[in-house]
């Protein structure tokens, strides 16, 4: 009997210790040291001021979320919500800053790409083998004929897509029809890109003639009659 009681006491002690350790463990697991919601939000605001990149912002967002979890675990949901109400405007502001940073980065990347493409185009124009004026003109005209035909195809594709879009509405947006519409949109985009590519090729031909032979290709009356006048 006495032995049984002793065993129960030991088990109860072990259980209590286990619970205490578990509670301590959850607290120690968090590397966040909580002060007060106001002070912690202030700390986040100071960090948000130093944001210069996307990575910085992500760090602040992660930290804010860790604080919130820590408040929920250590105190209660109400305290966590109060803390959230304090830091959310700070994160909104930081989000705006991030958007501005991203826009600046995108603009810089666009300028870089433009410069590299321009030099690439000039390089292509300088090394392009050129024929006589008439031959060059014929190249341009042939490309223009292809472009014209492709523009007709593009217009037909767009018209088909518009009709099909109405059919989808009438049919109640079935998945297979939506997929087909997606494919049609992809075809339209691909056709547009093909046209742009040929137009770009024409621009390089004109540039090559201008750079290498200082002559300008002039197409008169589009495809039919062409008068070649070299500007030497």
């Amino acid at each position, binding site marked *: 009997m006495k032995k049984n009681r002793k065993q129960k006491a030991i088990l109860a002690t072990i259980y209590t210790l286990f619970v205490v350790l578990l509670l301590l463990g959850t607290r120690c697991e968090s590397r966040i040291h909580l002060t007060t919601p106001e002070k912690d939000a202030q700390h986040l605001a100071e960090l948000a001021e130093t944001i210069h990149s996307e990575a910085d912002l992500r760090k602040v967002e992660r930290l804010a979320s860790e604080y919130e979890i820590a408040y929920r675990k250590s105190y209660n949901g109400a305290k966590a919500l109060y803390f959230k109400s304090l830091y959310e405007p700070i994160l909104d502001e930081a989000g705006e800053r991030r958007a501005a940073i991203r826009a600046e980065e995108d*603009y*810089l990347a666009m*300028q*870089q790409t*433009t*410069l590299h493409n*321009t*030099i690439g185009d*000039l*390089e292509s124009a*300088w*090394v392009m083998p050129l024929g006589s004026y008439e031959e060059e003109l014929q190249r341009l005209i042939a490309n223009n004929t292809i472009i014209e035909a492709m523009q007709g195809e593009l217009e037909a594709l767009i018209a088909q897509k518009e009709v099909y879009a109405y059919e989808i509405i009438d049919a109640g947006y079935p998945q297979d029809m939506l997929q087909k519409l997606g494919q049609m949109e992809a075809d339209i985009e691909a056709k547009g890109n093909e046209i742009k590519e040929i137009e770009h090729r024409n621009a390089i031909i004109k540039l090559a003639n201008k*750079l290498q032979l200082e002559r300008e290709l002039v197409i008169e009356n589009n495809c039919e009659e062409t008068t070649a006048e070299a500007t030497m």
Partner: protein
Amino acid sequence: MMKKYIILASCLAFMACGNGDAQAIKIDEQNHLNEAYNLSYELATAVKEATTYEEFQEASLNLKSYEEAFRTQIGGESYLIFLEECNAILNE
């Protein structure tokens, strides 16, 4: 065996030459904004006004080296100005 070493050494020398250009350039850190305006004008004009392929090659390599130097040494607003000015001149 010897041939392999020669090819490897040539490649390394070529890479060193390529990287060396941008590294050898030193952008004036006190005056980088003016440098961005002046150099972009000078370099892009040289590319645009090249009258032979050789001239173009030299001018474009020079521009690329300075672009790299601005990007790695200065960055920020001056690098952006350098790019914008070059683009404006080359595409006008």
